[in-house]
């Protein structure tokens, strides 16, 4: 009964947020469409990261590779394939890539996995950079892309989809299996959880939406450049949002993204350096004092009240 009520509250909150995002253009003007787009993008990316890394504890520091592959797919096929094919294909390319690297990558744990994922994303970045050089394509232009509003609407759909997916996976047998892997992988295997299969599935699933997000964001830049869409800063931001928001609950990534988007919006124009300093300070504070993030604080507050 309580589960049902909290589910209802979550989906209602999500619907309100999405509805607000959809109307932001008519309420506040074009600039805020872009802010809303950023917000939705970070939710979709962080939620997808949390789906695998948050539940299993395998911390990936290379999720930009999925974003970049999706963006590259759309840039390469621009004006060749219709966008309703190209963007999902970006997601598919990212998912297939995740599937390919999952088996070898997921054999290592802890800091080795962190470094490996980061290394893979850098490797792909420089491989594609060299491929583009070899092809004589030093830059790709994407003129005539859909409006910011159209991209925003699709992005909101992805943010909602990733949030619902996280919520559903978390309460499923599959999700509980992933959480068990975080607890103790060997024990999980002993009690009959198909550990390898779950890890591979989780990793692949967590790549699909970021691939589509990358594909959509490529449409927002007239000028496609490899270094930009494979920028490791994107991976770092995802992890920061997940830590600040909390990553084992679908509410966490939304709170984390909201917090950082709000902070950055407040400060980037007036005090950009202060933003970076605060970011570092918050990161340290959350890791030390509130390891389950804003959502953990929220939970604690809720428990305090119900007592």
């Amino acid at each position, binding site marked *: 009964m309580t589960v049902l009520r909290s589910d209802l509250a979550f989906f209602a909150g999500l619907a309100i947020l999405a509805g607000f995002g959809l109307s932001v253009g008519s309420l506040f003007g074009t*600039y805020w469409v872009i802010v809303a787009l950023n917000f939705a993008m970070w939710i979709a990316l962080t939620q997808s990261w949390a789906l695998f890394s948050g539940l299993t504890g395998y911390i990936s520091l290379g999720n930009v590779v999925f974003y970049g592959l999706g963006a590259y797919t759309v840039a390469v096929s621009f004006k060749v394939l219709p966008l309703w094919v190209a963007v999902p294909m970006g997601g598919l390319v990212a998912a297939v890539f995740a599937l390919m690297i999952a088996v070898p990558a997921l054999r290592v744990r802890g800091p080795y996995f962190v470094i490996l994922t980061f290394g893979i994303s850098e490797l792909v970045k420089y491989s594609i*950079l060299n491929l583009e*050089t070899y092809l004589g394509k030093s830059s790709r232009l994407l003129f005539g892309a859909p409006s910011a509003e159209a991209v925003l609407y699709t992005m909101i759909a992805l943010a909602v989809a990733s949030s619902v997916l996280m919520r559903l996976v978390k309460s499923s047998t599959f999700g509980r299996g992933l959480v068990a892997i975080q607890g103790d992988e060997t024990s999980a295997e002993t009690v009959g959880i198909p550990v390898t299969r779950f890890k591979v599935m989780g990793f692949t699933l967590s790549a699909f939406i970021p691939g589509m997000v990358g594909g959509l964001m490529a449409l927002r830049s007239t000028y496609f450049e490899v270094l930009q869409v494979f920028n490791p800063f994107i991976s770092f931001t995802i992890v920061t949002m997940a830590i600040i928001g909390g990553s084992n609950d679908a509410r966490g990534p939304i709170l984390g993204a909201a917090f950082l988007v709000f902070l950055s919006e407040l400060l980037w124009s007036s005090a950009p350096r202060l933003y970076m300093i605060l970011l570092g300070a918050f990161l340290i504070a959350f890791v030390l004092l509130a390891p389950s993030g804003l959502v953990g604080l929220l939970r604690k507050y809720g428990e305090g009240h119900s007592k």
Partner: protein
Amino acid sequence: MTLRNTVLGAVALTMLAGVASAQDAVKIGYSIANTGLFSQAAPSQVTAYELWAEQVNAEGGLEVAGEKRPVELIWYDDESDPAKAAQIYEKLISDDEVDLLLAPWGTPHHLNVAGVVESHGFPMVGNTAASVAIREVSPGNVWFPTSAIPDKVGPELAAFAKSEGIGSVAILANVLPFAQENLQFLLPALEEQGIEVKMNENYPPDISDMTSLLAQVKASGADAVIALSYPADSFLYMGQAKELGIDQPFQFLLVGPTISAFQGAFGADADGIVTLGHWSPHQADWERAKPFYDAYVAKYGFAPDYLDSALAYMSAEILEAAVAQAGLDHEKLRDVISTSTFDTINGPVRFDGVENVETPTAFLQLQGGEMHLIWPGDIATSEYQNR
């Protein structure tokens, strides 16, 4: 209490500031890579903007269709992120409601911003963008005063090398877009001139050691070295080429030597280096060139970047002249910029579509600490000299 005082103070300050600038300042917005990957390059441009604004205000303001109004620059840091730059121009136009725009730094930023200004019908004179890709921007809204477009640079460089009796070259190229685009047009042009390519190697953007590449250059025995480099690797090349004794009389570096820090770092060692650039204060036919150079040196204590500072200043001059004629109406401005000929520090500038069709593609050489135009002959300020 303290908080309230602070808030009140802030409000009062804002109001004062409002009064001070209420004399109908013309607000001019831009974004700049103040931090991040391109932060080394951006000051060349900002210094030119600020000098221009200061000069305009010292003369009583910007002439807006017969009336003089002070100018006020509004800028934000885009962190070297082209997507952020696009967001900033959106904010400048719809939130800050600026009257005019100046350009951000670099080709990716220009092209990203092009989409935004186009959707608002807001004219912007570009400057530090050079790529064949600019021709894909639909004409009438953004203009590019540069003449350093790779499909012109390649053939001109090959023709220039031929005229100096070069028979073979060794090429090093950064994998980043501007260098690669130049390479793409240089190779066929060299072939056409009958110049042999003895070596052609790419290197990564964050290269920190060039010794093995330079050893190959040395072993190639080519008459000339053409390094299609960015600023950071131009510095690297210069330092390591000296150590390894690269002694080709003709050495070309793509981007970097026009920055005064480059000349400062290498002094006489850099003498004879040839680079890309179409402006020099020594060209007496361009009456505004020397005064700009002198004013810049007086304000900052070092020489302007012959490429980026000159282009940034030119774009402001073009905007200034257009506003004097058309006022601030976007439609009229677009019309005037598209059809007029402008007198700039780089001589006359006229646009056909998005492109400046007056300024020739040219090369500079460092000669005794001075940057001279050495090609093409009709604007040259000095003869080419072997290193």
